[in-house]
Each structure stands twice: as structure tokens, then as C-alpha cells.
């Protein structure tokens, strides 16, 4: 099972859209895919029309008291399941802190899911916290949406520093441009120049598009209602980039 996390220190950068759309693409390709909506806001859960409620809450999950598999819900799409958000996830930091080796806890919890899933996508809450540290420890790669602005670039640098500080060299950081507005000169300039400094960067930028915003109205992944639009095509290319980078063919 390949574990990926959609993550950025900053919020509102297209993190959930990336998690939901990439998961949908993985599932369509035939990979058994699970999204865990770790964000107490529950946007991914909302996109799949599932009730943001987990029996026993975040505390039960972290303690290992609740059976993770029994909380999983099928989405409307084949091969694509969801572990829903729960409002109690806002206390996840605290629950983790009460465990031994809190940063390793998540990895241990996820292990049994490997029997049922090929790809696991964690949709993480923004900010750096104990939860995100646990995610860094569990995941093979972080997918980091970056809006081409100076401020976003600073947070990306912070992330690299954090990885160095935590000695997590095995963790792949895969940034990609998100919500790119070609009409803006600064966006164009950054999209053209930044990849030279960051060879890890995924090659496909995701454009700013009204179709992506419509996901909230349709309550569905982009490809399922606007599969031919430019943004959907970009997500598809991005997914193939990610799959190639992680040699997902061999899972």
C-alpha cells in the first residue's frame, strides 16, 4: 500500500481538491483507494456526501479501540472508499500526545489497511502539529499544492527545513502548482522559474478553474461531472506524474 498525504502548512491552497481528485483517478485506474479525511472541517467527506461522523471519535481511533475498517464507507465510485472526518479530530493532537511514541502511532494504525487497499490518501489539516508529524512519519510522499505566490514559496521552504530538522530524509516532498492563474504575471513567472530550483517539483500545474469550485455544488470529484475540462485533464496528468514518481505500478 502506497501512503500519500495531501498537505500544506497553509490552508485554502487546493489541498482537498487534490486529494479527492487524485484518489478518484487512482480508483478509476483500478487501484483500491482509500481517502482518510483527517481534517475536522471535513471537506473531503462533504464532497463524497458522507456524514462526517466516526463512532467513538478521534480518541477511539487513536487509541486503537475502534476498528478502522468498520468505519470505512464506500463512495459512489467503484474502488474508492472514505474514512470520514469527525468533528472530534480537532483534538487529535491531544489524543496522540497521550499515546506512547505519538508520531509513530498513525503508521501503526494504518498498517492493517494494506490488505485491502493499494493507495491511501490522507487529507491533512493545515499547520504543523503532532498530527502532521505523525502523517510525515506514516506517509511515503507529501503532495504539496503551491499557489505561485511569494508567501506560498516561503511555506514550502519551511516544510523542507522541517523535514531536515526531523531527519525525515526518506519522506518524498512532491510540490505542484495549484490554482494557477495564467492572467497574473507573477503566477506565470513563478511557474516558469521555480522548477529549476526544485527538481522534485511535479511537472503539471493545476489551473485555477471554476469547475474545481463547482465540486462543492456537485458534491463529487471533478472527473465525474466535468471530465473533459482543462482542470480535470491537468489532474489526470498530475496523477500519472505521481504514480510514476512512486512507481505505483509495482504496488
Amino acid at each position: 500500500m502506497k501512503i500519500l498525504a495531501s498537505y500544506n502548512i497553509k490552508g485554502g491552497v487546493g489541498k482537498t481538491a487534490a486529494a479527492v481528485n487524485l484518489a478518484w483517478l487512482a480508483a478509476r485506474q483500478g487501484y483500491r483507494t482509500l481517502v482518510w479525511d483527517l481534517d475536522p472541517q471535513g471537506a473531503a467527506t462533504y464532497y463524497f456526501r458522507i456524514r462526517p461522523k466516526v463512532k467513538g471519535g478521534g480518541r477511539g481511533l487513536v487509541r486503537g479501540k475502534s476498528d478502522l475498517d468498520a468505519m470505512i464507507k464506500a463512495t459512489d465510485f467503484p474502488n474508492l472508499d472514505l474514512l470520514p472526518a469527525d468533528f472530534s479530530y480537532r483534538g487529535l493532537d491531544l489524543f496522540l500526545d497521550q499515546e506512547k511514541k505519538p508520531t509513530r502511532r498513525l503508521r501503526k494504525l494504518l498498517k492493517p489497511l494494506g490488505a485491502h487497499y493499494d493507495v491511501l490518501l490522507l487529507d491533512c489539516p493545515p499547520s504543523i502539529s503532532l498530527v502532521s508529524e505523525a502523517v510525515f512519519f506514516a506517509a511515503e510522499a507529501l503532495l504539496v499544492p503551491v499557489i505561485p505566490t511569494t508567501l506560498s514559496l516561503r511555506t514550502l521552504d519551511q516544510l523542507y527545513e522541517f523535514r531536515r530538522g526531523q531527519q525525515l530524509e526518506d519522506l518524498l516532498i512532491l510540490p505542484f502548482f495549484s490554482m494557477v492563474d495564467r492572467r497574473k504575471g507573477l503566477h506565470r513567472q513563478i511557474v516558469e522559474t521555480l522548477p529549476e530550483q526544485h527538481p522534485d517539483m511535479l511537472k503539471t500545474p493545476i489551473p485555477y478553474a471554476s469547475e474545481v469550485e463547482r465540486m462543492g455544488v456537485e458534491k463529487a470529484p471533478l472527473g465525474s461531472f466535468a471530465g473533459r475540462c482543462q482542470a480535470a485533464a491537468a489532474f489526470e496528468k498530475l496523477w500519472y506524474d505521481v504514480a510514476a514518481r512512486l512507481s505505483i505500478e509495482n504496488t
Partner: protein
Amino acid sequence: MPESHYRLNGAEENLLEGLAQEFGLVREADGPFERTFFDSFDWRLYRNGWILSEDWGEGQEKRSLLQTTEGVWVAEGEGVPGSFAWDFSPGPLREALQPVLEMRALLPVIRLASRRTIYRVLDEREKTVLRLEILHPGVLDGDDAVQALQPRLILHPLKGFDKQARQVATFLERSCGLAPMPSDLFEEALAALGRAPADYSSKVDVVLEPGMPTAAALRQVLSDLLTTLLANQQGVEDNLDSEFLHDFRVAVRRTRSALSQVKNVFPARQIDFFRKEFAWLGNLTSLARDLDVYLLHFPDFQARLPAEVREDLVPFRLFLEKHQKIEYRKLVQQLKSPRFRKLISRWSDFLDAPGDLEETPNGALPIAEVAARRIRRVYRRVLREGAAISAQSPPEDLHELRKTCKKLRYLMEFFQSLYPPERIGRLIKALKGLQDNLGAYQDLHVQVETLRRFSREMAEEGDAPAETLLALGRLVEGLDRRQIEVREEFAERFSRFAREKNQLLFRELFKPQAREQV
């Protein structure tokens, strides 16, 4: 919760109205629906416990699903894009299929042409909590005529929504009076066409009685081989994959072996014609098979070379493909010739004609006696030839031993049903271990020779870039080294085959019959 099927007997409108009053119901799809079940000619997927189907419905792309025969999901992906596992795009479906199918082509086994409507049952968030499918299935027979199967309602539950699925199931059974039915459409469709799964195997499959006259037993074995040969003819003519010709050839070789190994059973004047003609048929297929083998080995040949020169070998593949096509064309012409047709019709007439048991020394003897005597003799020859091989023996000696082993193997397989399966199975397995070593050695030996010949021919035909010839040269060197390694393994393999435990079992199983001892 697994999917469940319910028998439908008309009155669908009432049923749907009833459902719609109780549950939120939305129609998702409606129209023609096609499902094709695929497998290799020798049922590799089914024998592995799998079923591969490709679905296509109105407004949908083709999807393939690989599941166990019990219906458990194995892998899924886009439709079946070609004949071979390597035609699939990278993904879990290709990963799963590749090691099971190997070089065999996927062929459509059953085609269903149906009408279906799918409804989604929604909860208050308009989330789908299960799907209901109304299916009027039909199976296409050989003339593409549709034969209707039992209409049904299929309930597809979704993970995490068991409660809702149970509610709907209870409603269907209690309020609508629907009766559950078996969910295996594949076997149902096969049965409707009078077929059963795994109805082809290249193995000799006859059940003999120890007291049967040898002539009758041998006829039965030979008839089985003829059936195999004919079953593969169409696949050879259409060049669907390399194994049709392989199985065809093995059937010819076994036939020839049966005729020459079990002597004095049929009158010589009758047999001479067949022996001559089957020898002709065997030779006819050799060149095409050689080219098949080199094409199958090609990826391995390429992998043996350093990465930077692998591409240099590509013109060699083109050369092989060109000649393979030519040889198949020649072969297919011969399979349509009067000479081949005459052989087959005379041969099947001969096999169908009973009698003439008394005319020959062995024809009327019990098969158990003749088989044991013959196996004993060939077994002793294997031991003798094997023991005589030293580190200095020429390759020809190993080749001779390999041929003797093959004779022994065929005999044991022909008459397998006369012996306890577990015990003869053990001996066949021991023999196979030795044969694998001898086969690998001989193949490498021939490959080195043949690759040299191909290089010469390529140069003569003028489509050989210098780099390709160099790459072939390096390949030959590598194969030479491998041949030495394989040769060194022989002594150990042979002593394992000839160990006392096996010798005792051989003697015990094929001991002289009571009547012989008198």
C-alpha cells in the same frame, strides 16, 4: 455483504413502484449491456480460480474485472485492450494477469448481450447507499443468436452501508416475494451452451483398465492425442499465440512416440504409413516453432545484455517476426493440403476401427503388463545412459539421454491412470527435475548454434546493422557461459533422480505382472 441475485418473473413496474415508495430511488443507467468473459484457450485464469469479464454499457467506457470464481474482487482496470497481458496499460490488472497468462492470448469464452437498468438507492444526503440492477441476460451462441437466461434483480451493497442493504433485501423478500437465486452468470451461460469450464487441457486424459487389451488402450490414448491436435489446429492457422502450435507439436510427438515405443501392437503394414506421415507433420512445424521460441525468449535475450546495447537487438526481433510470418504461412498452406487431410481422415478411421487384436504379439495382452514392461525397459536405459555421463562426455550423450527421458515421460503419462496417482506423480516429478536440466542444456546449446546461423542469415539478407551483430555476439557469449553452469548442475540432478528411494518406487510400481513371472 456480497451481491445477491433474485429471480424476476414479470411485474417489474409494480416492484419498482413499491421500492420507490419505501426508498429514495434514482435511475442511473438504462440500455443495452454487454459482458464478455475472457480466458486463455487452456483456461489458465479459471484453473487459477479466476474469472475475467469485460463490461460495456450505454454511455460507459469498457471496464474489466478480475475476480475469484467465488466472486471476490482481485483487480480491475480499463477494458481488454488486446490479446495479451502485456497489451494492458500498467496497473493492477496487468500485474495480476501477467504471471498467470504468460504468453497465452486472452480469447472471448462467453459473450452476454443483455438489457439492464440500474437504480441507485439514496439516503437523505443523496448519497448512494446501494445499487439495484434489473438484468435481462442473454448469451450469444456460435451463430450470434441470443439465448435468453433467467431475468433477475441484482442487489449491489456498498461497504459501510450494510444496514440499508439489509433493509432493501428484507423488503424484496418479504413484501415483494422475490426468491434468491445463484449468482454465477458465467457458469449459467456456459451450461446454456452445453459447455463446462476447463473443457480443454493439453494433458493426456484417458482412464484405462489394467486388464484392457493393449491395442484398445493404445487406441484410446492415440484418440485423445488426435483430439488435442485437432483442437489446436484453428489457433495455429489464426496464429493466436505460440502455444497452439506448441500443443499441436507435442500431440504429434506423443503420437509418434506411442507408435514406436509400444511395439508389436498394430500390424506393421498399417502403421508404416502413419509413422511416415506423422514424421512429415512434425518436421513441417519445426521452423515456425523455432521462431516462436526465439520471439518468446527475446525479452530475456535483451535483458541479458547491458542496458546501453539492448536497443541494438531490435532489428533481430524484426528479422524473427518477418520469418515467423513466412513460416506460419507455409505451415498453414500444408495444413490445408490434401496430404494433411488424408492423414487425419485415415488416422481417425484407423483409431475408430476395432478388432485386429489377435494379429500381433502384444495387441491382445493386458495393457498393465505391456506398459510395465516397456516402462521398465526405458527406465533402465535412462539409468544406464545417465550413469555413463562424466564431465568429459560430449553434448551428444546428454542429448541422447534427454530423448530417452522424454520417451519415459510420455509412457508414464500415457498409462498414468493404471497407477496410484500420488505414487506415479512422485516419479513423474522426479523425472521432470532431470528433464528440466537436460532441456535447459540442450536449449542453450541449440540457441548458441541457431543465433550464429540467424546472424549469418541477417547479414546475407542485408538487414543487419553492425551493432546488432555485435549485440548478438555478446548474447552468444553469455549463453555459452550459462550452458557451462547448467552442465555443472547435471550430476547432482541425475543422482537425485536415480536415488534409491526412487529406484525402489520404480521397481515396485512397474514390477513384472504375475503372468509374466510364470
